[in-house]
């Protein structure tokens, strides 16, 4: 990947909405679904995977500057169905799904609605299930920077991705992401009441990853995913917050590559 993934941005229409995506690398297909705070330009984790896989990283429609939202979209399941359409349109029949945080919820929905089309399922700090203790951190109550900082254990790791003083464009992008989250995941906030029973249908082997210091999604969500998915393994990444792919990209890339290679 000489030029990095950023050289591979394309766009296609799905359900009347333009969907931007980055596609790079060669090998078995891996779909990476990003966090609720958008898709950062610097995607070391995706680049690492693209060394051995055909990596597809779409930007959730309506998440960020220049990403047109689907006015009709009302649930995270709608987004998952849209992505099923994206994969079909690109001729990707069966793929490994890697969902990061909010994207983990999307991946879990995609896996449960079409179990035969999932090669491997990787959920990293996945939202989507109601924790039995505590709550998924509610961005409606905290500032933009505070929320994004809560994704990291180490402030330096946040700075490395977003800068010590995130730009005003970044703030605006976070507000747009936040609005889209509200549009599709307001109530109940960031979880589904109908996903858990459907996870039993997933046939693909699953890797459930959780940052040991995740301050956004309680560890119980990972425990529930690991218990509900029929063939799942739980891995905890030490010294890491919610955004494992951003704070420990090399560790996550190795975990995922090993898991896919098993």
């Amino acid at each position: 990947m000489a030029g990095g993934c950023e050289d591979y941005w394309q766009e296609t229409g799905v359900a009347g909405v333009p969907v931007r995506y980055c596609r790079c690398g060669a090998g078995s297909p891996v779909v990476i679904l990003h966090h609720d705070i958008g898709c950062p330009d610097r995607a070391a984790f995706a680049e690492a995977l693209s060394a051995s896989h055909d990596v597809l990283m779409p930007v959730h429609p309506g998440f960020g500057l220049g990403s047109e939202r689907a006015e009709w979209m009302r649930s995270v399941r709608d987004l998952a169905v849209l992505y099923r359409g994206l994969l079909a349109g690109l001729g990707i029949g069966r793929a490994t799904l890697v969902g990061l945080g909010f994207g983990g919820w999307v991946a879990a929905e995609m896996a449960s609605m079409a179990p035969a089309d999932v090669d491997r399922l990787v959920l990293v700090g996945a939202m989507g299930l109601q924790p039995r203790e505590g709550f998924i951190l509610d961005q409606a109550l905290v500032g933009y920077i505070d929320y994004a900082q809560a994704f990291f254990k180490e402030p330096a790791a946040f700075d490395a991705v977003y800068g010590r003083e995130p730009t005003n464009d970044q703030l605006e992008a976070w507000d747009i992401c936040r609005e889209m989250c509200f549009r599709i995941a307001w109530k109940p906030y960031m979880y589904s009441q109908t996903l858990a029973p459907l996870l039993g249908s997933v046939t693909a082997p699953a890797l459930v990853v959780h940052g040991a210091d995740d301050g956004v999604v309680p560890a119980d969500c990972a425990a529930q995913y690991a218990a509900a998915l029929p063939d799942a393994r739980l891995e905890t990444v030490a010294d890491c917050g919610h955004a494992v792919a951003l704070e420990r990209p090399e560790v996550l890339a190795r975990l995922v590559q090993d898991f896919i290679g098993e």
Partner: protein
Amino acid sequence: MHLMYFTEQPMSTYPADKGLEFGATALMFSNRYFDPVDGSRLYNEFLEQYLYAEEVGIDGIMLNEHHNAPFCMQAKANIFAAILAGMTEKVKIVMLGNPLPLSENPVRLAEELAMIDMISKGRLVSGFVRGGGQEQLAAGVNPAYNRERFEEAHDLVVRAWTETGPFRFEGRHYQNRVVNPWAVPLQKPYPRVWVPGVISRETIVWAAEQRYPYIALNTSIADTKKIWQTYDDVALEAGYEAGPENRGYLIQVHVSDNEEKAIENARQFRWMQGEFTGLAHPVWSTPSGYSSPRNRRAFVEFAAGRRANPRGQTSFEQQMEDLRIIAGTPDTVVPKLRRILEETRPGILALWGNDGTVSQEDSMTCIRMIGTEVFPAIREIAKELDLKSPFEAEAPVSIRYSTDLKAPAAAAE
């Protein structure tokens, strides 16, 4: 001219130091500091103020509601409206207003308002608002659909008031299998709807399209004029010429028999550090999706502490200078109000008489002087300036009931 009295109903006995310590006096500032003994006393004092306002000849009582904050004790404006419907004889009960998007069943709201209208023998003015950002969070209502819910709930309420039931309503946010309320308004075609607001251009445009009077909430003279320009332009497009009967204005005015005391009490308009909706995190007052996308950049920069509040934040002295706060004896207050009337030409005027810790005695003095000295003078000025209220102008309730619409100017050319 329709002349009203307004109070925010401040929960003035909360420990201010606790608010400062917590860093907020809204949404998440704990209600452990709400003392119901004080609350009971204050609610009854406010009721006493309203009854006195009628006694001294004030035309209307303006009511509102807010949630989770000491700046306003009314958690449901319809409750005070219902009390006043039964306890008063003449005053208009002017609700500015019911926050429509917070309602999960607007038909129930239509029923409550119809009851208030009937009990008051047709004295209801039923204003509607979007509700503040914090209200959406307090009520768990999606801020991203605020405006859609506002417009759709309005349509449902008006249909429930004007169409014979039963009928079915299938909206985007509201679906009602059987709309058939056995409570309909006394006033026909339906009670007057006035729409208050501060900065949202979309709301001004919507009000003008409906031909509903817009009530500018304590805006500066310059901003008020801009609001009327927007309103008037939309009105012409819609086929009517807007006038004083389409314009309302709320202003903070404290009247006393003593200039110094008036100014001292007027400082209470800036209680809670001048944040009249309380100290709060910007993302609470403007949750994502609540505000117009055109304000997005300004709000995110404000939220990150990188620019001043786009809603403006000025000192007490500057507000006095700008005539957004007026304080004094009737002799000094009336000429200042005259200037506002001359410059902005409203047909509806509400005086927000007191706030914060102003004593009940001083509040009652203020109401007495407004009713017996200030408003009689304002009525004379209004006659001289030909400022007619919607009632005096016999303005249609809405555009749908207008019989004087002209072809839009552009089309006529």
